[in-house]
């Protein structure tokens, strides 16, 4: 993984020092509220309902065991002994004291981590496929490009006060797992007909209040022109993006209002003026510099000759189920990637205790080259496990509560912190997640249902990605009560689609019941092994709607 050099270390150290002084000035009354707000947000520090929340950046979801131990240490020392992994592959702490935050950031700096640009109207954490570097369907490892982009976007002097937050994702696989089309910029690494590496660029995707699927602005961007093109897009956005209304300030609204053709024209015109600027043009050896941090591990060539794995799969049904659902093929024979489910029965999706983090760090050292990945589905992943090690790994994960074999199933749902923590939320989402995990605790039934992606957000901001859930649940406020709007048929994958609203919002007590009815409708109409989303696309919304609302008159109007 990427290792800091003196430049990186210096920048992070200076940022921590600057922030320590900003906190001091703020507490001394020397720094006005607007200014402190703009500054603390750039260090990932929010003001929530009950306390501050600190979000730590995990660049493209990759952590070393040493870093994970530090995250555990922070949870133990300065928070309530747990952290929450987010849909942006970051981690957040819900209860730090403001006065402690400089110390937390200083501790993080010792393991090359920080909270820089995890919030604020600037370029946020760069994300990618959680299987980067090990996926079988990958063209090239996207992480060197992510790191180049991370450095370009960090403290960018021109783009540090954009109209709104800005999220960039990379993907290099046949099956897209990075939700590219829901990002401000989605970069798909491709090979053109001439065999050259380059990028297809999508702009203007985003969830939230106005969910929009990103649109293609460039079919093929040459590999060395990445930074000039990003700079052109950001400059057009910084100059022309709306600043009068926070709900219309994302780049997706600019693209929509200009029209993708006019927007593309503006970007291309800007790009034409800077594409040959030597300050932005990458060279082959620049790419090599970043690539060498992401070389394949020293895999054991004899790993594939193991016989114990197959034997254990035949003799232990529970292990076989975990292997089937929670592990994934690896590009190297004899290895698999193993998911660590953070969706236990009755738990809060994405939460992880300090003890779990420490134990996982240990397991990563033992079985996966000391690396851990975070996924945008709020799970963790050990990317490089020998098949012979899967059984002991599974045995170790079980007592930790990290072996729930439910990846990709209905109970592997994602949800935002909701009204339990967040100052923006209209409604809770964790409680519903917990009830659903209880309701669908029967694994055989769960497996029969196949892949169903449930995504829940406690408000329009859509941190839980509800718009692209096969079943999306959005919390809304109705005269001070928590109500929920359900959508069906969304997808964040290759076939990126926004879900359709099924009808009027539903009261808190009826939400789990409504989801059960949706699932039953699917089961009754399903053909063969069809997936929920495919059944929905085939039969349409009417049968689902009828089942949930019955004869309710208002169902038609919605």
């Amino acid at each position: 993984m990427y290792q800091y050099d003196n430049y990186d270390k210096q920048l992070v150290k200076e940022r921590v020092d600057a922030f320590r002084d900003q906190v001091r000035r703020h507490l001394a009354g020397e720094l006005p509220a607007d200014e402190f707000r703009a500054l603390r947000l750039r260090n990932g520090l929010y003001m929530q309902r009950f306390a501050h929340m600190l979000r730590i950046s995990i660049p493209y979801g990759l952590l070393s065991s040493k870093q994970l131990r530090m995250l555990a240490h922070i949870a133990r020392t300065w928070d309530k002994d747990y952290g929450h992994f987010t849909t942006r592959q970051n981690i957040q702490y819900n209860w730090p004291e403001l006065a402690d935050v400089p110390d937390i950031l200083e501790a993080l700096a010792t393991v090359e981590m920080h909270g820089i640009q995890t919030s604020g109207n600037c370029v946020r954490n760069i994300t990618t496929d959680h299987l980067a570097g090990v996926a079988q369907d990958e063209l090239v490892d996207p992480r060197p490009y992510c790191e180049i982009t991370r450095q370009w976007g960090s403290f960018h002097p021109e783009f540090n006060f954009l109209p709104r937050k800005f999220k960039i994702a990379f993907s290099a696989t046949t099956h897209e797992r990075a939700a590219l089309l829901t990002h401000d910029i989605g970069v798909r690494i491709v090979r053109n007909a001439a065999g050259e590496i380059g990028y297809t660029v999508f702009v203007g995707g985003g969830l939230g209040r106005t969910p929009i699927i990103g649109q293609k602005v460039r079919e093929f961007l040459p590999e060395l022109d990445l930074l000039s093109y990003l700079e052109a897009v950001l400059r057009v956005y910084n100059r022309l993006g709306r600043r009068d209304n926070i709900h219309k300030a994302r780049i997706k609204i600019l693209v929509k209002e200009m029209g993708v053709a006019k927007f593309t024209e503006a970007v291309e015109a800007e790009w034409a003026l800077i594409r040959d600027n030597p300050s932005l043009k990458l060279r082959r050896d620049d790419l090599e510099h970043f690539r060498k941090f992401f070389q394949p591990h020293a895999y054991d060539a004899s790993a594939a000759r193991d016989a114990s794995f197959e034997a254990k799969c035949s003799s232990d049904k529970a292990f076989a189920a975990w292997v089937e659902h929670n592990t994934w093929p690896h590009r190297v024979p004899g290895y698999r990637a193993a998911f660590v489910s953070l969706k236990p029965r009755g738990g809060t999706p994405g939460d992880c205790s300090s003890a779990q983090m420490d134990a996982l760090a240990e397991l990563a050292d033992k079985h996966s080259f000391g690396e851990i990945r975070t996924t945008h589905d709020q799970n963790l992943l050990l990317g490089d496990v020998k098949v012979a090690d899967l059984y002991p790994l599974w045995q170790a994960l079980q007592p930790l509560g990290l072996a729930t074999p439910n990846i990709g199933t209905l109970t592997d749902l994602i949800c935002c912190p909701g009204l339990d923590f967040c100052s923006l939320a209209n409604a809770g989402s964790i409680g519903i997640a917990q009830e659903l995990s209880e309701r669908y605790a029967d694994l055989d039934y769960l497996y029969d249902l196949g892949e169903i992606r449930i995504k829940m957000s406690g408000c329009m901001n859509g941190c839980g990605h509800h718009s692209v859930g096969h079943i999306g649940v959005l919390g809304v406020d109705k005269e001070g009560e928590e109500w929920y709007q359900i959508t069906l048929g969304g997808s964040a994958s290759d076939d990126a689609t926004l879900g359709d609203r099924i009808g009027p919002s539903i009261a808190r007590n009826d939400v789990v019941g409504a989801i059960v009815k949706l699932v039953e409708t699917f089961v009754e109409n399903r053909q063969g092994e069809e997936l929920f989303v495919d059944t929905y696309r085939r039969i349409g919304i009417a049968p689902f709607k009828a089942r949930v609302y019955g004869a309710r008159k208002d169902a038609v109007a919605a």
Partner: protein
Amino acid sequence: MGKQIIRDRRIVMDDWSHVEDEAALPSSGKIIVSHTRWQADKATLAKRGDVGISIPPTLDVATLAPDLPSLALIALPFNFIQPKPEGGRTFDGRSYSQARLLRERFGYKGEIRAIGDIFRDSMHYAWRCGVNAFELAAGRDLDDALKGFDDFSTHYQAAADDPTPIFRRRKA
């Protein structure tokens, strides 16, 4: 009168004065007028040789290109704005782009001055974009603001102050 500003990282007396659109032009001295007034009275103003203009953040600075040789100063507003519907004010970053374009694309050599709500912790970025003078709002502590330039001693990207990105410097 007697106001101080920061220019080229030093506190100096301000030798320029802002002239409102309705006010009469002083017969001599360095003056900053609005872009609107410049547009209306360019022929007269250009003869003075000591004219600067303040431009709105919405202006496409490419339209200024022919006028740049006649302009000794360009003032850019850096302000907090209150977007709808509610919530905290946000800092308007459009002038960062204007500054870079003036310096890097149009080769402007005169003074680029930040006016408005520019504050200590936003100044380092403005400097990197080519802003070399800072006229802080009344009541701001200039000695304190000077410290803002030292927030970082290095940087990742190229900008108006340094054409060499980090991936080149690393190999140097």
